[in-house]
């Protein structure tokens, strides 16, 4: 493969990981020694603003859900940091709050490769000339991270902040709010965080997996990062795959085939009725030829979101499963914004009536009306994500909806029959 592009002397640099096994290459619960012997040292002190250009060349996108180009977020933060009469140095936050109940990848990463995340955080902080660094994650994860920080002198300035285990706790403005006030609720977004976030400073919030990739790109360069995945979706990403078997965290190339992912997880795609991709704000799809990628046509690509894959066995009712998820999402509304606080429970109620087989042909129309009503009306994307899930359920389980409206359920676990 192409030699990595880095300024480190050849002798200091162990071989870059080949293939798609990258983020866990240093082994289980890697300490600083294993980390350094596998990845080599990283001189974060030599990183400056030009690293943002390397990230741009790498094509790295955020691995927390929204899949923004990481370099753009960084460039915007760096720019606001140096703008104005009284420049204010940025804050960089590593976000490991994994609110998705089906996501385990971030805590797995923090437990096994904490040093890669720390490297990424230090590198990102240098690139935007930041003044303060935080790592925000569930208390269980923080204990391991604190141990990793104690192993190295360069990470002592990173402050650890516990994240509550709520669905919205990882939303970027909720992260900032949690650090500032201890309340992990989303904020109104009249101003961008990159302009005015924590204590009014330009604030960069990056997912911990995104930072781990940055820790590798800082060592091996953009060309190495792009040596797997596709041109539009380079590098690797972590997925949490759950279904009939035990939950697994997989590292897969960008633009990976859903069929391969299921196969590697030991799941027989023919025995499934549908697959939920992206998490509770994601989309149900049939387990056909989909690619997991943030870009691409709707019929061929499905967005990875928070990296969650849930396989639904053919004997389970997708409407009932979605109704349960919707109940959960309605309960996780932070109850700050009226349309979300009232609209989501209303949607959940209608979907439950459909799922339980109420023979009322008006119900899908009512669900559609409520979906349109809540869309785009909240301080965060919780209503929109919920609407996306419901839309995909009504589309993928259209035959089930018909059956339910006539008082039947096509699945064995349905209680409608």
């Amino acid at each position, binding site marked *: 493969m192409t030699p990595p592009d880095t300024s480190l002397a050849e002798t200091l640099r162990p071989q870059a990981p080949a293939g798609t096994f990258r983020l866990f290459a240093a082994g289980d619960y890697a300490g600083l020694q294993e980390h350094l012997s596998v990845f080599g040292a990283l001189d974060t002190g030599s990183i400056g603003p030009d690293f943002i250009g390397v990230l741009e060349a790498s094509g790295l996108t955020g691995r927390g859900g929204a899949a923004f180009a990481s370099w753009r977020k960084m460039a915007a933060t760096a720019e606001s940091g140096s703008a104005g009469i009284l420049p204010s140095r940025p804050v960089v936050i590593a976000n490991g709050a994994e609110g998705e109940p089906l996501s385990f990848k971030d805590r797995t990463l923090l437990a096994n490769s904490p040093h890669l995340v720390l490297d990424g955080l230090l590198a990102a902080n240098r690139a935007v000339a930041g003044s303060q660094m935080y790592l925000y994650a569930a208390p269980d994860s923080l204990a391991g991270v604190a141990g990793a920080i104690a192993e190295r002198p360069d990470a002592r300035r990173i402050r650890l902040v516990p994240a509550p285990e709520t669905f919205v706790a990882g939303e970027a403005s909720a992260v900032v709010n949690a650090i500032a006030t201890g309340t992990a609720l989303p*904020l109104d977004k009249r*101003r961008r965080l990159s302009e005015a976030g924590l204590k009014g400073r330009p604030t960069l919030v990056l997912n911990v997996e995104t930072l781990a990739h940055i820790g590798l790109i800082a060592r091996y360069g953009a060309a190495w990062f792009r040596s797997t995945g596709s041109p539009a979706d380079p590098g690797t990403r972590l997925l949490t795959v759950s279904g009939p078997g035990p939950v697994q965290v997989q590292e897969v190339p960008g633009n990976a085939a859903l069929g391969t992912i299921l196969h590697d997880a030991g799941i027989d795609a023919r025995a499934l009725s549908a697959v939920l991709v992206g998490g509770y704000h994601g989309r149900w799809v049939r387990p056909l030829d989909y690619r997991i990628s943030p870009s691409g046509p709707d019929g061929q690509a499905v967005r990875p979101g928070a990296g969650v894959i849930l396989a639904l066995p053919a004997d389970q009712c997708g409407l009932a499963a979605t109704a349960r998820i919707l109940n959960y999402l309605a309960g996780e509304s932070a109850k700050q914004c009226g349309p979300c606080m009232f609209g989501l429970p209303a949607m959940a109620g209608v979907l439950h009536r459909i799922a339980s087989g109420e023979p009322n042909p008006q119900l899908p129309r009512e669900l559609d009306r409520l979906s349109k*009503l809540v869309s785009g009306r909240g301080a965060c994307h919780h209503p929109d994500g919920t609407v996306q899930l419901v839309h995909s359920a009504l589309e993928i389980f259209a035959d089930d909806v018909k059956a339910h409206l006539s008082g039947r359920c096509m699945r064995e676990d349905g209680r409608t029959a």
Partner: protein
Amino acid sequence: MSDTLHIDWTKCDGRGLCTELLPALLARDDWGYPVSRRSRSGNRTDVPIGADSLDAAADAVRLCPRLALSLVGERTSRRA
């Protein structure tokens, strides 16, 4: 170009004073909260305001009991 009326949903209590002042722009939803009658690419939190509604919108901003409304110029209304 036009300005927008930004609704801070975390403050709005849905009593609907703004919908009375700006009936051409805002309707009320099932629960009383303002709904933009127009939207710009799915964004219904920043309501586009024509020049003819600017004064009424400024009144709404001033009179909203929860200070949930603000006028944002076209250039600064884009959000992350």
